[in-house]
């Protein structure tokens, strides 16, 4: 087990460095001089030279990459071109909002996805199966930003039940988390359904039925327990989707999270800001996947044996 965990951690490190490298290359070939972008078109050449020097822009590429990796490891993502503030400070301010939104969205996707998957599996190939799966698939097919706008129009403007945008209390998070959670409920439902169907075909299920247990006791007590292990661990993979979806949800609902600052960084052509935000978000996703693998290995010891 320990060997498996160490191996998984060791695999993650080069992936993370690769991610940093890809970002560095993509963001450093962008045309346009950062100093000019930062200060506007008409500045004196000697000022440009001074700032290029201060920002170490004229160092060889390899040195710049090395510095960027070492600084990132210490949590230093540079200074925003636009706001002249530490990128890490801005990320630290935004991150809790995204965590909150993602957490609520995960809850919503479970509340929709798991019961839908169970209902669909128990009533396989009936109208109920199709209705529940259809509802979940609809969430996957819904453009998140548009669902957000529609929700604002109906629930905030027409019915006035909920506030439109903001992040001041739980009420503000209801619409964004439902919209975002619904978008990944389909994955949860599909997985619950197929795992439960597979689990229901086991011999111990036949035994449980044979000894006269009610169908609900068989499903809930025996089959579901096995079926939900992969569902719960797939959550980590879902976090990647949710963080992507959060970019749009945050933009629509005015929540100042990571997605919002990434979008703002693109609009401002603020390279360090964009680089820092994307690197940080991706690192979170990698850490999440790692955690999921390890949890899964604990729940299902066959995994660590097979993967050696």
């Amino acid at each position, binding site marked *: 087990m320990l060997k498996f965990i160490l191996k998984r951690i060791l695999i993650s490190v080069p992936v993370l460095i690769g991610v940093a490298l890809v970002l560095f290359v993509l963001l450093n070939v962008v045309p346009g001089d950062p100093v000019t972008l930062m200060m506007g078109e008409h500045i004196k050449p000697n000022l440009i030279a001074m700032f290029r020097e201060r920002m170490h822009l004229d160092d060889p590429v390899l040195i710049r990459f090395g510095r960027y990796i070492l600084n990132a490891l210490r949590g230093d993502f540079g200074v925003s071109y636009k706001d002249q503030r530490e990128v890490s400070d801005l990320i630290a301010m935004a991150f809790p909002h995204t965590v909150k939104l993602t957490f609520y969205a995960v809850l919503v996707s479970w509340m929709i996805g798991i019961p839908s998957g169970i209902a669909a599996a128990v009533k396989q190939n009936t109208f109920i199966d199709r209705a529940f799966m259809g509802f979940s*698939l609809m969430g996957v*097919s819904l453009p998140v930003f548009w669902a957000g706008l529609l929700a604002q129009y109906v629930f905030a403007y027409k019915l006035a039940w909920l506030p439109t945008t903001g992040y001041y209390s739980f009420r503000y998070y209801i619409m964004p988390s439902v919209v975002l959670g619904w978008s990944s409920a389909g994955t949860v439902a599909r997985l619950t359904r197929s795992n439960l169907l597979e689990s229901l075909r086991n011999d111990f299920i036949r035994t449980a039925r044979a000894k006269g247990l009610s169908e609900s006791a068989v499903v809930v007590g025996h089959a579901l327990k096995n079926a939900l292990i992969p569902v719960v661990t797939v959550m980590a993979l879902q976090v990647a989707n949710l963080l*992507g979806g959060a970019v749009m949800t945050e933009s629509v609902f005015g929540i100042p999270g990571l997605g919002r600052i990434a979008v703002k960084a693109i609009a401002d052509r603020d390279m360090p800001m964009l680089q820092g935000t994307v690197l940080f978000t991706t690192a979170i*996703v990698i850490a999440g996947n790692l955690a999921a693998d390890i949890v899964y290995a604990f729940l299902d010891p066959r995994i660590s044996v097979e993967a050696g």
Partner: protein
Amino acid sequence: MADFENAAAEVLYDESVSKSLRDMLRKNKTSAVSLVIVVLIMIAAAAAPLYLKYNPNKHSLKERFAAPSAAHWLGCDDLGRDQLTRLVYGARISILIGIIPTSFSMIIGTFLGLLSGYFGGRTDFWIMRAADIVLAFPSLLLAMVVSYTLGGGIMSIFAALSTVSWAGTARVIRAQTMSLKEHEFVEAARSVGVGDLVIMFRHILPNCLPNLIVLFTLNIPAAILNESALSFLGVGAAPPSASWGLMVYRYKTYLLSYPWLAIAPGVAILVFVLAFNFLGDGVRDALDPYMKD
């Protein structure tokens, strides 16, 4: 010799692919209806100039924000352009964006997956590490960065969407190749001296077809959703070639006073993507042996 080579190149489940698909469409009504919807939308978009009487880019001050009526079924936008016409022309962009980058990324992914699975070793290691890196990014963020680098516009959307989606295909095809290359027909081909490239493309690739069909039908809606998201965030296609996502983005300002403007393109995305997803689900159930019940 030539005969022998052809016999060896047999396709393991050739007849069953089209037969499974036909059976699936006969039994699974949701998928059949979805297929009809998808085809109808494509025909409607392709034949647009034949039946639409308005020009999608013609401004008309008099008809700014005209409400839906007999003349303009979905009203007019802030510049007095007929919304229905724009929606149909937007379908062209959205469908192109669904198909072109998806095909492109699948060609790359298939090629790399074949190389990786067939040769194994160091080739496999580097290709799969590259795939790991791409898959580690939340795809929307990576697509945002790529189109930021390339400066926006439809070409950079194509590049961005291809960049984020080749890796999934590569993984699936690699796994398939690894299991296929152990089969006797590959062994037989190799023993009579068929070259590696010929084995990869003539003997192994045709047997990956079911996987490729499943991936293709499921990747198209994903690409359309991703493009609409990029457009909505302002890093997408440039006007006046308005895709559906861009239309929502443009008209969201008028959501409270003229809601139909932003709602209609969203409904279009939803219907098209939903139909594709239902179709893809059916195709997967029919072709993926692990999902069959």
